[in-house]
């Protein structure tokens, strides 16, 4: 005779129950059997400090095997970055290459639909978006000037250019919003046609990146007021700049494929 589970709730119970049960077993193993809650028998960094060393080694010192001992015997306390570059900057460039792939999904769809003629641009305002492009290029310029200013320790100019960048970025969003409103007044919406679909999703995700950039820019400005950035330490400004210029690059592509090539 067939035993039939009646509802989704029973399934929730089954899946959740399995998860919970294994969770309890795994948690039990982890915290009771593996002694995960007990500190490792090894020393902490604190005993490596001079204060601890001066204390006469009352803390149990590491008991390494002879082989391990000989491997780390000639070692160093701190190793410099193996490529001699900042983690943050390398990380940002790595992240940007994944951003390229994200926009490829959206742009690829647009270009393919355009190429086969399924998608026809409607009611685009080339001049207005040209002004938007100009504003965004200006903001890239001010961001790079801000970096230049902090590297020359000109804090006043640094703050000035950051403020300028925020205003320019906000102006770009304003222009984009006006253009969206204009298109919608012509009846072009995300649901009206394939063009509307691709246009609003693409420019929407780009706009989202600009807005995230603006939030980051504001935080950078607050840190600038606090005097966090110096000629020696301005990686925060540089990595932000990389992100911002990348968003600019994406706009250059979008401007070309949406507005210029009609």
């Amino acid at each position: 005779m067939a035993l039939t589970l009646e509802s989704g709730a029973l399934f929730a119970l089954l899946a959740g129950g399995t998860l919970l049960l294994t969770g309890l077993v795994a948690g039990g193993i982890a915290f009771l059997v593996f002694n995960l809650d007990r500190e490792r028998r090894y020393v902490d960094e604190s005993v490596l400090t001079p204060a601890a060393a001066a204390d006469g080694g009352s803390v149990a010192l590491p008991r390494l095997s002879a082989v391990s001992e000989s491997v780390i015997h000639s070692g160093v306390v701190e190793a410099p970055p193996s490529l001699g570059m900042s983690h943050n900057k390398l990380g940002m460039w790595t992240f940007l290459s994944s951003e390229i792939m994200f926009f490829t999904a959206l742009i690829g769809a647009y270009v393919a639909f355009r190429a086969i003629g399924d998608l026809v641009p409607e009611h685009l305002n080339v001049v207005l978006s040209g002004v938007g492009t100009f504003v965004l290029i200006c903001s890239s310029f001010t961001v790079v000037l801000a970096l230049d200013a902090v590297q020359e320790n000109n804090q006043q100019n640094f703050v000035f250019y950051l403020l300028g960048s925020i205003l320019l970025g906000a102006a770009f969003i304003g222009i984009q919003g006006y253009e969206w409103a204009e298109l919608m007044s012509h009846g072009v919406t995300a649901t009206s046609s394939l063009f509307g679909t691709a246009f609003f999703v693409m420019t929407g995700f780009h706009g989202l990146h600009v807005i995230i950039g603006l939030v980051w820019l504001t935080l950078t400005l607050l840190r600038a007021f606090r005097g966090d950035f110096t000629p020696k330490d301005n990686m925060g400004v540089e990595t932000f700049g990389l992100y911002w210029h990348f968003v600019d690059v994406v706009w250059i592509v979008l401007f070309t494929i949406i507005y210029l090539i009609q």
Partner: protein
Amino acid sequence: MAATTYPGSAVTRRASLVDWLTTVDHKKIGIMYVILAFLFFAAGGTLALLIRWELALPGQQLLDADQYNKVFSMHGTTMIFLFVIPMLVGLGNYFVPLQIGARDMAFPRLNALSLWMTVGGGILLYSSWLVPGGAAAIGWTGYAPLTSTTFSPSSSVDLWAIGLIVLGSASTAGAVNFIVTTLNMRAPGMTMWRLPLFTWSVLVTAFMVLLATPMLSGALAMQLADRNLGTQFFVPESGDPVLWQHLFWFYSHPAVYIMVVPAMGVISEILPVFSRKPIFGYSAIVWSSIAIGVLGFTTWAHHMFTTGLSPLLESFFILSTMIIAVPTGVKMFNWIFTMIGGSLKFDTPLLFSIGFLSMFLIGGLSGVFQAVLPLDRQLHDTYWVVAHFHYVIFGGTVFGLVAGAYYWLPKMFGFKLGEGLGKIHFWLMFIGFNLTFFPMHILGLLGMPRRYFDYPAERGWTEYNLAATIGAFIILLAFLVFLVNVIMSAIRREPAGDDPWEGNTLEWATTSPPPVHNFDRIPVVSSLRPVRDARLRLAGEPVEDELH
């Protein structure tokens, strides 16, 4: 995170639950990834057993058609996104910094964020059971237009998509972390050509995650927009459902390699240690990993041969699919020649590695079969395909993962695992696996389609299905043996020592488990196998010059 050691009193504070939840230590995060993955393995495994129970005999056993759809959809999604990938990320998290002689990952806080985003993504995915209409019943592939609101009105599909975006963002962040760590945090003297092969495989995988995952996020964003904003990307009338397939497989085919390349790295670590020989052709393995990483991106449309691609694309993807077997074959020969002439120590890690080699060979070869277009049209969406990818993902990756678990658990927790139960685990899993998935090849050739909850008795499929179901429960038994083995070994607590296997790489040059800062001093590396060279020097034996 670190328990405070009070100088002078030698009192250590116990690491509390809060310490674990707020840790940024790569080892604690790695352990939590492994535990998380194991939890979801249990959940996904339960779903798999439900599938097999339903299919054991013709007629409805346990599930109706709709429930069956939910069960296999969530089984696939869980196993790929919440078991295999987090498990590999966990092992990578724990061992990459140790192998390259670093104290932590490059971005420890980002690392913690990735972990908790993975947890959140898992919760989002599983919360889809609770909404009206139950979990997403769209297959793990989520093809349009099945995912449209017309055919899947339940908001569980939205939860599925959002969960995957969250999981994808977590793995992208993790990929950035792994790439920066591996490139920029190597110990002095650890050149790229002295990098342990597991670390190399994680690096290649990280690049694939970095470039493939955003494509899936983009496609999922479009799918969400189609469902919730009324856009038309994948709508058949104006957009194109095949676009989803392109974008989805552009992620999901590399994802197969994302899942298998780290397991290959584990095997490349284990085989030389248990053969007492250097790895055969280190640079060939590295280059073939890189080749797989690149070619993995060029084969996606072989999943779409039945959608009517242009002949130009068809021939391109047939060719690329066959070419990618070449670097995989190169590795196969490297591994076999590593073992030939070695003095093999048949401990559990080696058994599972040999299991990997043989099972992955079958899975790889049946993949090349499917590159042949006429055959693919016949086999598409039959049980042959199910057999093929389970031989790759289960026979390959899971065998590799379990080999890695037996190899590295002593390092992670400081005690040895029982060899006797380990061998029982291996044989149960090997037999159960083949009993489950080998008959599926035949079922596929007999024409049984995948994703059907029932089949007629007169088709002659019953015996094979029954065998597969029995095999699935043998696999369950195998993992119960594993669980018992781990618990009993933990109670027995036979100390592993720094280096239970006489290993080659730097993780064996610290205590088991390693201290918070990994190494008192960062080792200066001058060869491919620093720990083995130090061992020989200490014993007064000559250390021959190696290539690198």
